[in-house]
């Protein structure tokens, strides 16, 4: 009896969470006559696949996807490489000023990113990086979150490993990438997924620093598409679907790493 209640409650919550996506899929496959009706049905009849083609061709979505892939890819690559090096230094090297620097890093976590919006906008303008890839990408190449996540992981590894590497004459950079990295794949996947998904979804910064459609990412392109199409909800939902599906697949494949990484950030 208790089990039944638990499953029922979970099903209700799941329906609340997933329902809007089901409604999106349903609408995206409906002919126009079935969309604007006050007695909507969940099942599209007939199934109108052409909504997808119509939505895809009415804005340069291919370009948006390439932009998003490039921007998120570069940000993730740099974030992992630079973040791992910084994390390694904090976890495994003794040096002057370590404590102070680490506290400063901690303090930046207290600052809301939105406070940085205006001054960073001014900086990018001064660098003449408005409406350029570097203007969109460079401010987000490192994230303190990645450094903390990796540092925790590196700290928990046995010290003998690092002593052995040092005895073999490996410098810290080679130790990190040749010895530590293959042994710590999960944390790289976790950090990479969190950065990639976060970067893919962030769109306020792109809206602010770019006014060129050629640089628009998927979320920005989708927003603009919304204001162009107006009330053709079947096409809007088709666009929303193909914009979210690739990332949803990435999430579903890596969800264990992703969710556990997020969960770990709560346990201090």
């Amino acid at each position: 009896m208790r089990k039944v209640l638990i499953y029922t409650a979970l099903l209700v919550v799941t329906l609340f969470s997933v329902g809007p996506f089901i409604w999106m899929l349903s609408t995206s496959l409906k002919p126009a006559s079935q969309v604007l009706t006050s007695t909507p049905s969940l099942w599209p009849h007939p199934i109108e696949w052409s909504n997808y083609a119509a939505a895809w061709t009415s804005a340069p979505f291919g370009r948006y996807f390439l932009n998003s892939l490039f921007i998120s890819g570069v940000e993730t690559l740099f974030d992992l490489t630079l973040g791992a090096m910084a994390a390694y230094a904090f976890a495994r090297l003794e040096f002057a000023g370590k404590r102070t620097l680490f506290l400063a890093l901690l303090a930046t976590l207290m600052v809301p990113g939105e406070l940085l919006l205006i001054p960073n906008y001014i900086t990018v303008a001064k660098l003449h990086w408005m409406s350029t890839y570097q203007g969109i990408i460079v401010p987000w190449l490192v994230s303190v979150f990645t450094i903390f996540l990796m540092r925790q992981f590196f700290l928990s590894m046995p010290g003998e490993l690092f002593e052995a590497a040092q005895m073999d004459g490996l410098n810290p950079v080679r130790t990190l990438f040749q010895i530590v990295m293959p042994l710590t794949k999960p944390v790289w996947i976790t950090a990479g997924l969190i950065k990639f998904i976060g970067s893919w979804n962030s769109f306020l910064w792109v809206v602010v620093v770019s006014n060129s459609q050629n640089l628009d990412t998927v979320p920005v392109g989708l927003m603009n598409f919304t204001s162009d199409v107006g009330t053709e909800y079947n096409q809007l939902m088709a666009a929303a679907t193909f914009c979210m599906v690739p990332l949803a697949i990435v999430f579903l494949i890596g969800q264990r790493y992703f969710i556990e990484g997020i969960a770990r950030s709560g346990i201090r």
Partner: protein
Amino acid sequence: MTLKARRTITAYLMLFPTLILLAVFTLYPIVESFVISFFRWDMISPHKQFVGLRNYVQIFQDPLFHRAVANTILFVALYVPIVMALGLGVALLLNAKIRLRGFFRTAIFLPYVTSIAATGIIWQWIFNDQFGLLNDLLRQIGIQGPDWLNTPQDTMICLVTLSVWQSLGYVSVLFLAGLQNISREYYEAARVDGAHGWNLFRHVTWPLLSPTTFFVLLISTIEAFKVFLPVYVLYGATDGPNDSGLTMLYYMFTEGFSDYRMGYASASAYILFVIILACTLLQMTLQRRVHYES
């Protein structure tokens, strides 16, 4: 060169790119936005006019800012308790001995990883007054739903619904991690003493979960004070009917990126920052007190 000096050089070489980037795009902006909050500057003219505290004075006198503060506080007051209560409830359900835990967890988490640009459109469609799903469901139980997105009184309902829907999975996962962190031994000991059901929750789970609860409370409050994107996507880059969705961050955004009053916008950003900082400090003090007492 001593070994210590060499080690320090190696470490700084590894830290160098990170430190440069953080200095330019995180540390410097914190100072820079404080400085320009005392100036009047439109980004075009080469000259910045020093105005002292006038930006701050003007903001505090602006009725629109009062509106933004009131809306933001209302949002925080609605969103934080709802998302925390539901999140804890879902976490307790997921922590029970059930099959398909992974499936439920992933499904509930999905909205959190989906771009709000996409989910905003979906909810716009759900809230549509004539053809939307919500009013259709209401009609089936005999209620004529309002024009959700064009009625100022309903703006907060829409914003809180979208935000709770989006963050529920995240909050649940944080609570679930906290629950799984509580050692089984406590429960067993309490059961031996005859505790079960509500008593078990009240005297074992709730006190032992309090570090997680405080963490979630802090994170959700900060996020709620910074609410912006739900307004932006749900109301098509406007602040809702009759400014009913104007939040503090929306106010900053308009001043900065529509009117290009950079000093003024920075001042409003700093006010928000100070409020968030005050919340953080307040909650940290409270948390310390709770811990000493238990």
